C-alpha cells in the first residue's frame, strides 16, 4: 500500500501562528484565549499590534490550557496560575536534566576545534 509521507512541523520559537489559528488549534474560546493573554500565560510576539501573532510554541501551551480547563473544570485565571507552576517545574526539570547529562563535570569548559574524519 502506498502511503503519502506527511511533514511534521515543529512547535517552537521559530515559526508563528495567528490569533485565529491559535483558537482553532487549541480548542480554546476567544474570550478564554484573550483572558490567558491578559493573565500573561500566553504572550503575543507584539502585544501592541492590532492583530496578534504568537510563536507556534504557544500552540503547545494553549492546548495544555484547554486540557487543564476542560479536565479540571477551571476558569482561565486558575489555568494561568497552574500553567505558571507547570512552566516553573518544567524549567527546573530541564535544568536538572542538563546537570545530570553533565553529571561528571566540575571543571570549566575549554575547547579545541576537532578535526573531522
Amino acid at each position, binding site marked *: *500500500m502506498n*502511503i*503519502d*509521507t*506527511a*511533514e*511534521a*512541523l*515543529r*512547535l*517552537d520559537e*521559530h515559526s508563528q501562528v495567528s490569533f485565529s489559528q491559535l483558537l*482553532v*488549534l*487549541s*480548542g480554546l474560546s476567544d474570550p478564554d484565549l484573550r483572558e490567558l493573554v491578559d493573565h500573561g500565560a500566553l504572550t503575543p510576539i507584539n502585544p501592541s499590534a492590532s492583530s496578534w501573532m504568537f510563536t*507556534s510554541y504557544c*500552540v*503547545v501551551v494553549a*492546548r*495544555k490550557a*484547554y*486540557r*487543564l480547563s*476542560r*479536565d*479540571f473544570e477551571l476558569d482561565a485565571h486558575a489555568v494561568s496560575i*497552574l500553567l505558571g507552576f*507547570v512552566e516553573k517545574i518544567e524549567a527546573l526539570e*530541564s535544568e536538572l*536534566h*542538563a546537570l*545530570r*547529562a*553533565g553529571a*561528571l*563535570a*566540575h*571543571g*570549566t*569548559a*575549554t*575547547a*579545541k*576545534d*576537532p*578535526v*573531522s*574524519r
Partner: protein
Amino acid sequence: MKYKDYYKILGVARDASADDIKKSYRKLARKYHPDVSKEKNAEENFKEVSEAYETLRDAEKRAAYDQLGSHAAGQEFRPPPDWSQHFGSGSPFDQMGQNAFDDIDLADLLAGLTGGRARGRAGGRAGGREGPIPGPDYEAMVRITLEQAFHGTEIELDLSVPEYDDRGIAHRVPHRIKVRIPKGVTDGQKLRVPGKGGKGTQGGRAGDLYLDIQVQSHPLFRTSGQDLYVDLPLAPWEAVLGTSVELPTPAGAVALKVPAGTRAGQQLRLAGRGLSRPGEKSGDLFAIVAIVVPTVVNERERELFRQLSESSNFDPRAHFKLGAAA
C-alpha cells in the same frame, strides 16, 4: 465489544452518588493528568479515568451503561437485545442488529447516545452540534533513536482511530500514517502534522496529528536540549601529557586534541557538534573527562609508577594544608 468497568476505574461503588463520582474523578485526574503528573503510564491511566467519568457523570449515559450489565473488565460482550431500542432511541444505534456492535468501542457507543460524534476539537465534546464539525486531533508518542533525531527520519505510525459510518456510528479501524520527522528534534518536543487527525464532518476541516517526541537513551551520549554529552576516559599520562583521541559523534568520529594538564571532570566543548536544525544555531557536544587508572599493572609499569612517585613534587592535597592553616 470489550467491557470496561467504569466504576472500578474510578474506584467507586456501583451505587455511588454523583458527588462521590466527581470527587473520585478529581482525585484521579490530579494523580494521572498528563500535564501535571509524573506517574508512569499517566496518559494511559488518565484516558481511562476520563472515559469513565465522561459516562458516569451523565445520568442518561450512566443508566445506559448500567443496563449493559456487569462483566469482567476486558470481557467481550454485546448489549442486551432490547438495549438499543430502549437507550438508543433516536440515536444512530436505534434498531441496530446485535452483530453490529462487534467493532464498536464502548466509549463511542455511549458517546453516540448523545448525538453521534464522541469527541470534537482537541478531544473535546462536540455531541449534537450543528454546522461544520472539525475532525478530532490525534496524539501519539513517538520514540526515536538519537541518530534519528540527529539526522531526521521517517516513521510509520499505526493508530486505531474511530471512523464514522453513514449513520454517524464510530467504528475502530487501523490507520497507518507515514511522517517525516525533521532533523534536530529534541526529547519532549511536540510536533504537529496538519490534517492528519480525524476527518471532519458536515464540511468541517480534518483534525491534526500531534506527536510527542521521546529520544531513547543512548549507550554513549546523553542529551540536554540540543547539546550532547559524552564521557571521555583518559589514562593519567594522556591527561598529563596531552593527546589526540578519536571521539565518537552522531555524525561520525572526529579527532579531538586533549590539551596537556587536562583535569578530571573538565568539559571539552566541540562547538556545533550537537543536534542541529536548519537555519538555527546548532547545539554543542561536550566531552567530559574522566581519568581512569589501570587496576592491573605489570612489573615494569609498577616500577615506572614507583619512579614517578619518588621523583614527582606534585601534591594533589596541597589545598588541605592551606585549609588547615586558615
